[in-house]
């Protein structure tokens, strides 16, 4: 039993969290209201690997 994350898992989680906070959260309400598919954001996610 080992509930700890390894360094790579921590790095990926932190990257995903940073992306979500900086790039997704600010526009999420507007996209929901206007039913906008997050095309730009998905392309950017790919660039963030």
């Amino acid at each position: 039993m080992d509930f700890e994350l390894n360094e790579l898992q921590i790095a990926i989680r932190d990257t995903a969290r940073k992306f979500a906070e900086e790039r997704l959260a600010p526009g999420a309400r507007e996209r929901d209201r206007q039913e906008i598919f997050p095309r730009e954001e998905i392309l950017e996610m790919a660039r963030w690997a």
Partner: protein
Amino acid sequence: MNFELTETQRMLRDTCREFAERELVPNARRWDEEHRFPVEAVRKLGELGLMGVAVPEEWGGAGADNVSYALAMEEISRGCASTGVIMSVNNSLYCDPILRYGTEEQKREWLVPFARGEKLGCFGLTEPEAGSDAAAQKTTAVRDGDHYVINGAKNWITNGTRADAIVLFAMTNREAGHRGISAFIVDLNSPGVTRAPADRKLGINASESCSLYFENVRVPAKNLLGKEGEGFKIAMSTLDGGRIGIAAQAVGIARAAYEAALAYARERKTFGKAIAEHQAIAFMLADMATEIDAARLLVLRAAALKDQGVRHTAESSMAKLYASEMSHRVTHKALQIHGGYGYSKEFDVERYYRDSRITEIYEGTSEIQRIVISANLLKA
């Protein structure tokens, strides 16, 4: 992340499972009905090292880790929840604080025979007017030369009827509030100790709890555990570990109920098919299995943190809160699946239902767990 057990952990779990199948499952219903303390089973647990699972071998224990302890508690409690709590109190509430705070001399005298299962320990924090509010202790310990003189009453003391010694909490400085509480190792055969008859209760009827009265009990000063004023800290950190044991007990009771319900649902037929094939019952089984798994993962995470030596207060409380309330829901559903037979003393589910209830109360009620968890969230 790795959810696999080590070879040692698997072996210990399997040993406990076989022991429970052989020694506990065939007897648990009768012990419950007759309110019979499982003397023989407890002696055999001692021989297997299960009365001091996480105590190092040099101090009489099995030298296993806390993950192993949680696995053992689940298996033993699946067979007999009463035996589970007798074991949990000796391991978590008696041996563990002496292991962590005891001097070499205290460990030799007060840990080794208890971890070996030759003697039985208990834990005295709760009082008639100090349950959840543990800092409202009335029991006092007054220094008198080489001794402390103890006066007061403790209640709901599991194993109290038969224990050889107790880790006892008493006020050494009333003005200091919870910082005035100290911990002592007290020989329960000392003059001035009176044990009330065993409490009558809803469940875990093969285990015994009772009130203990201390009247001018003289305890050698060398039996002070830790320093004066450290009692509250010792009590709370001990309960962090104890809650892992009780959470594992709750998982064990739930598993026993779930396994009985699964077997019954496959056999029992209504409207031309096994009731397990009715979606109403199948969905109940799905929820039961899912919740048991979720609870076990919380328990093992808390145990793994304890093994790492890091603070696990919130995680232990989360495991205890979720596992105990889960156990109540699962045993409730298991009884429902059994219908009228579930309500009958001819089956085991009514016992699981009664036994699960205490896990929401002792070693911190669900309300206390929510206070502990929310306090941890809010201070972060």
